[in-house]
């Protein structure tokens, strides 16, 4: 990139009186006279700019982005994998795009068929009986799944189950969703190899436990091998086993949560099924259930009538509605496009290649970065910082130095099981050349950390913004243009 960094703010471009529209005078004056207590008494401080200035400003801003379309991104499916462009084309089809959300079933057969087909394919992939695509995001899916579980217990008159057991390595959304669902969170410990300690779990299980939430492979990328034993313990206690689909990527077409004994699961379409979710959305968190729990799924459900037509139905046993419409439909369209373009064989390859790529990087770097848990990982793995920590170079420094080489920084300081966590997830879409280049850069940084540690500690050096004071930024954040003007003075 040999272009100067564009760092202007729209407020800096503002000039009094400039505007990007010109409307004829309507001669009617102000249409509404608001009461004094509802009217502003100060002018609204909006930028005053003409149209070309606005267009250039945002176009220039957009070129500052780093994304999976501009470079390698070791955050993997955890954040977002590559989004094939054909998915965009499918989701932009006029028939889908122009559909009003309240169109009756009889006039939206094509859209309902898409919904039904995707929920059926997800059920096949997850080993579940039925999916709802209505939840708007992963955490919304978790909440919906827990509400399904509560509806199930309540339907049996089993109302004293108020606890959810969550592993200490879980994503923060698990305890958060349980809390929003009004449930109490109980933590179960990990063993040194990062998997759930069955001996710690056993005494926690009683008739007050509604569910146990697990991620498999877990947040360290380690496959939980004791699931059948855990599932039988959980079921013996009358609780249900919940599968957090955050790490479904390596399991695609290889293993199914339903076959392992999970009762309820959610999938993040924007992770595993390659739909975009930049800027906080739209996401999609479909929830699947095993046979016998379908009637508790949120209303409405899409069903196929014996004559082959599709319809919307509501169940009185359902937990209610979690969305006004059938979820983020365009995201579902992209996910179906992804599954259909991969096909069964391709879907199986995705999980396998993601696992191979992660293991290849792990084995190529474990002599210079500390690998706390040996053995085969799944789609991701965690280093505990550099192997040689004598020069005081931290994981944060390594991540910042990666920016100098044109890579997005990986997830750092998560999971909390290690002090210097550095998580790498390459996904299946990266070529061997890209992965080898990344390994070479990571090795260079490790060498620099030993030989010239100051270069790493003061990184990044090649980015438009250097090494900001993150403590000061957290303590005294500058969030408005007014504050910025004051700071500059």
């Amino acid at each position, binding site marked *: 990139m040999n272009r100067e960094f564009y760092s202007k703010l729209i407020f800096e471009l503002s000039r009094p009186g400039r505007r990007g529209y010109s409307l004829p005078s309507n001669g009617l004056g102000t249409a509404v006279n608001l009461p004094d207590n509802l009217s502003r008494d100060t002018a609204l401080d909006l930028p005053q700019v003409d149209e070309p200035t606005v267009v250039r400003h945002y176009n220039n801003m957009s070129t500052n982005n780093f994304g999976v379309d501009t470079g390698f991104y070791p955050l993997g499916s955890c954040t977002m994998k590559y989004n094939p462009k054909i998915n965009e084309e499918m989701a932009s089809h006029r028939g889908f795009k122009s559909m009003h959300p309240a169109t009756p079933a009889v006039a939206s057969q094509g859209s309902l068929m898409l919904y039904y087909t995707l929920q059926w394919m997800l059920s096949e992939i997850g080993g579940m009986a039925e999916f709802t695509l209505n939840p708007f995001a992963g955490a919304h899916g978790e909440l919906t799944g827990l509400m399904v579980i509560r509806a199930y217990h309540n339907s049996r008159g089993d109302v004293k189950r108020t606890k959810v057991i969550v592993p200490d390595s879980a994503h923060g959304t698990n305890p958060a969703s349980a809390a929003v669902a009004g449930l109490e969170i109980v933590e179960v410990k990990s063993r040194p190899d990062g998997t759930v300690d069955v001996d710690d779990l056993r005494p926690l299980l009683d008739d007050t436990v509604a569910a146990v939430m697990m991620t498999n492979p877990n947040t360290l990328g380690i496959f939980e091998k004791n699931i059948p034993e855990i599932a039988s313990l959980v079921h013996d206690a009358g609780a249900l086993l919940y599968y957090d689909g955050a790490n479904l990527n390596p399991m695609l077409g290889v293993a199914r949560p339903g076959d392992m004994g999970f009762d309820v699961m959610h999938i993040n379409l924007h992770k595993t099924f390659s739909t975009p979710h930049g800027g906080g959305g739209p996401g999609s968190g479909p929830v699947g259930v095993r046979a016998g729990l379908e009637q508790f799924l949120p209303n409405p459900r899409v069903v196929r009538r014996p004559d082959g037509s599709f319809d919307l139905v509501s169940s009185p046993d359902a937990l209610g509605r979690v969305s006004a419409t059938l979820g983020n439909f365009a995201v579902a369209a992209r996910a179906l496009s992804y599954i259909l373009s991969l096909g069964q064989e391709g879907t199986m390859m995705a999980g396998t290649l993601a696992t191979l790529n992660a293991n290849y990087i792990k084995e190529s770097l474990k002599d210079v970065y500390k690998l706390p848990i040996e053995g085969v990982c799944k789609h991701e793995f965690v280093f505990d910082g550099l192997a040689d920590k004598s020069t005081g170079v931290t994981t944060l420094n390594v991540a910042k130095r990666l920016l100098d080489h044109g890579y997005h920084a990986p997830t750092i*300081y998560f999971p909390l099981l290690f002090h210097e966590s550095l998580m790498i997830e390459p996904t299946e879409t990266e070529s061997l050349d890209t992965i080898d280049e990344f390994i070479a850069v990571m090795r260079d940084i490790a060498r620099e950390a030993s030989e010239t540690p100051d270069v790493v500690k003061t990184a990044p050096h090649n980015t438009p913004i250097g090494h900001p004071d*993150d403590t000061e930024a957290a303590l005294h954040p500058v969030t408005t243009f007014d504050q910025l003007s004051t700071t500059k003075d």
Partner: protein
Amino acid sequence: MSQIYYAPTHEYIVVDGNVGTIGITDYAQHALGNVVYVDMPEVDDEVEAGQDFGAIESVKAASDLISPVTGTVIEVNDALADNPRLVNQDPMANWIIKVEIADPTELDNLLDEEAYKAICK
């Protein structure tokens, strides 16, 4: 004569009579990195041994503060509200809360300096 005890969750408590001064250890502040926020209880709040009484947030992570003993908060270190970085500078001098200890026998469940140093290795 005061005595110091440690919790495996990296809080210390300096006991002087029935007053306990609670903070986080030097090991803990080092592991957390630069502290940017300390969430503290108020005077007269009850704290319970093994339960959280607040939280501490650094540029790396947020952690619960776990009370080593049961008791009543008698003083809160307000200086940390304006300048949480004091915890990094000297975690012993910059304690977080002082409590009136309800049950001194709970101190027997805590670690002495040697045992605490051993778990930090």
